[in-house]
């Protein structure tokens, strides 16, 4: 049985408190008027040069491109109103990015877990309880997501801009035919119902999978194992469809004019590689504390191989999506990549290739390195940071626009959800023995050597 170390528990709680304070600070320092925005932008512009004039502001799909320096007074006010909304969005975006990041780790772990069942893997059984522990975050994570989405509907803070009723009003200046055409899919009730179904489905599988897995410990026959096998197959079917839709609904709809058929699978690759990394890191931590005697460095090796392989897979999808849009250069599509490739997100956008591709590729190529815990942990940290940036670059340009920063609200949000994640996961790990001893493949897994 694992016992939650006091040190870790206290750090988790400290993270949460510090994070909560920082988040509160983020909300308190939101500018309330255009005047304040003026001051803020001037401060920021001291560092930047005016080359940013060609940047895209995606806040309002009717005004996709804002170039030219000589703008009228009315346009200036309009610009500042957008800027105000961007600044107001910032703490929300910071929370959403961090919240989604930790939620997707739990979700991806669940998918990995289901795949292990469905493929009758023989090596990973000794890691099952670790994975079950990580997926314990799924429920609180889902509740936070749900609460956030409800708030974003309720207070109309321009986060999901398609929720603005003005776009659908033919009398309004903002009337947007494209959005009207999409309103059969992008409308609040249907959108909320879908979200609810996704979250419900994933949590139900998690609940029964863990229940069966624990029941199998005491089982004399394989009933619970067989139930889980079936459940996993059907979960994967459900997941394959809902994961894509989730990506369209929660993230792609932030830029409602833009679309990419690959987007759902691209988000999947981010989610999957981050989860495997976290599984490896938690396993190594527990092993180092002496709690997983059955785990050996062959298990590390396999996990690191997955980190390596799926980092390359992520890059493959990243490149496929980017290159095809860059190559065809159709205006409605490249609008998405302009702020990312040429605008203020360039550094993050290109930089994440280093941490998501180059570093894992070079560091985890050697098979000896894949067995060394500190090597896996340090590569893992790089990978996780890279995928945080990936989520950041997906969400920020559409919500915060040109005024992005990684400051107190962002770091505090990470700290808060990191603390919560650690607390929930390690607390869940104390609830059950760390060896899934009733599983028919457990002996294979314990004797696993590669």
């Amino acid at each position, binding site marked *: 049985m694992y016992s939650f170390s006091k040190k870790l528990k206290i750090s988790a709680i400290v993270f949460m408190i510090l994070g909560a304070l920082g988040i509160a600070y983020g909300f308190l320092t939101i500018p309330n008027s255009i005047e304040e925005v003026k001051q803020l932008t001037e401060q920021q512009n001291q560092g930047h040069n005016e080359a940013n004039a060609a940047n895209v502001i995606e806040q309002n799909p009717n005004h996709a491109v804002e170039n030219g320096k000589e703008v009228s007074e009315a346009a200036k006010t309009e610009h500042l109103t957008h800027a105000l909304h961007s600044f107001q969005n910032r703490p929300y975006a910071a929370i959403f990015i961090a919240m989604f990041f930790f939620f997707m780790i739990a979700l991806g772990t669940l998918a990995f877990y289901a795949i292990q069942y469905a493929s009758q893997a023989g090596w990973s059984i000794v890691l099952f309880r670790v994975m079950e522990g990580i997926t314990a975050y799924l429920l609180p994570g889902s509740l936070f997501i749900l609460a956030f989405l409800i708030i974003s509907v309720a207070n109309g803070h321009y986060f999901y801009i398609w929720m603005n009723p003005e776009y659908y009003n033919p009398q309004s200046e903002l009337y947007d035919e494209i959005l009207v055409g999409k309103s059969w899919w992008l409308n609040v009730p249907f959108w909320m119902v879908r979200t609810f179904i996704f979250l419900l489905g994933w949590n139900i599988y998690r609940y029964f999978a863990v229940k069966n897995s624990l029941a199998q410990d005491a089982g004399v026959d394989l009933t619970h194992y067989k139930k889980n096998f079936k459940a996993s197959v059907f979960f994967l079917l459900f997941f394959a469809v809902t994961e894509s839709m989730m990506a369209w609904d929660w993230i792609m709809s932030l830029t409602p004019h833009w679309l990419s058929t690959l987007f759902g699978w691209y988000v999947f690759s981010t989610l999957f590689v981050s989860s495997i990394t976290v599984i490896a890191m938690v396993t190594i931590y527990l092993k180092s504390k002496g709690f997983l005697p059955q785990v050996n460095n062959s298990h590390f090796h396999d996990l690191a191989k997955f980190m390596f392989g799926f980092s390359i897979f992520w890059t493959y999808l990243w490149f496929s999506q980017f290159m095809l849009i860059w190559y065809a250069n159709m205006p409605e599509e490249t609008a998405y990549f302009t702020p990312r490739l040429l605008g203020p997100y360039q550094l993050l956008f290109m930089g994440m290739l280093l941490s998501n591709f180059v570093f894992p590729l070079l560091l985890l190529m050697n098979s000896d390195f894949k067995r060394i815990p500190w090597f896996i942990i340090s590569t893992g940290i790089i990978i996780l940071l890279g995928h945080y940036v990936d989520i950041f670059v997906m969400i920020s340009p559409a919500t915060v626009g040109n005024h992005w920063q990684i400051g107190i609200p962002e770091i505090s949000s990470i700290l808060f959800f990191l603390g919560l994640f650690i607390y929930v996961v390690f607390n869940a790990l104390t609830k059950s023995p760390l060896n899934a001893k009733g599983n*028919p493949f457990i002996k*294979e897994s314990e*004797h696993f050597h590669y």
Partner: protein
Amino acid sequence: MSHYEASIREPLINGNKSYHDITVDVAAPVEGKANKKWWIAFTIALLAFLYGIACIAYTIGIGIGVWGLNNRVNWAWDITNFVWWVGIGHAGTLISAVLLLFRQKWRMGINRSAEAMTIFAVFQAGLFPIIHMGRVWNAFYVLPLPNALGSLWVNFNSPLLWDVFAISTYLSVSLVFWYTGLLPDFAMLRDRAVRPFQKKIYGLLSFGWSGRLKDWQRFEEVSLVLAGLATPLVLSVHTIVSMDFATSVIPGWHSTIFPPYFVAGAIFSGFAMVQTLLLIMRKVSNLEAYITRIHIENMNKVILLTGGIVSVAYITEFFMGWYSGSSYEDYTYLSVGAATGPYWWAFWALITCNFIIPQSLWFKKLRTNYVWSFFISIVINIGMWFERFDIIVIDLSRGHLPSSWTMFSPTFVDVGIFIGTIGFFFVLFLLYARTFPVIAQAELKSILKSSGDNYKKLRENNHEQ
């Protein structure tokens, strides 16, 4: 590798086989004489091949106008068949490389034939990029060679050029991978050969393999490295093939999901072809003990999985067609317009063959049934041909400008060349089945003690004591 195997894993080698039995069974088709049925099949395939050659010669002699192409639909059967054949080839690499990385022992009964299929399919695929050119004799211009035209170079921006590199690299790496695996098996045939001519031939082919410890160690490392290289290669090859379409601005072609979706479709169709071939081969070559029900079932599961991925991609394409709000998307291959337009039959053939019928594999009764598996595999081969046909022809026939809307109908030359490649494929495969060890016996012997039914029974009895 673990020294322990869970008892719920099913045996992969049936019939109480010993090492010697495996050798004898694998060598039997090579050492025996071809029967009448083989000669009949070979003759038919050869005739089809010769007819195909005649059609190709006719095309090159008279001009590409003998095909059914027109100004608007300027790719049709040629590129459909090209993509279809490349796709079929992908299962071989998946079985030999990806399943090796995932340590799937059931791979060993089928990998040799799957790789052979890859290579023969890529041969067929490789014909089309050449013969669909208007000026075949200038084909070497696609290579970046220094020349007397002021060193006139190729433009590296075209996915058709990437195709050249992708296909030629794919073919060469697959060949090397396949050939390395063949060395110990050729050595086995060499050592068993009684006639001096055969001994000479297999002696040459086996490169003096003597099976020393160091050789085996290197052999395994090379296999693993090649598998690690072949996996990204196999993904990139069909990705590049998909980019022939996806980089364009044609509605229905320009779609970012194409790279992984084409790869999934390739594995889907490739496994279907492996299934077709192996279900026959296990019967005629008496290999039922090595290509067992579990092999067939596992392949059906892969078909179901990749079919599922392809289906999710269909749903995505369909959804995004609506979601885009673009009126042009109405006429593309997965849309309302395609379902009701002049090519409705091709559209519904795709949906029925790839989406509806394969769903029957969810039932264990059907996916373990040999006859049904054979039927499904044929259906998928047809369905995946229609998928490529739909993508290419429907999208080209109804483009942006209504004044250039048109239909396509193939001529006998289009059909003849396709039949010719099928004939060529079977000529190669039939020759292979009589001269090559169709099962990687050396690999199979490495799992006999862990996965042979006799050894499994022995272990079970020991546990019961």
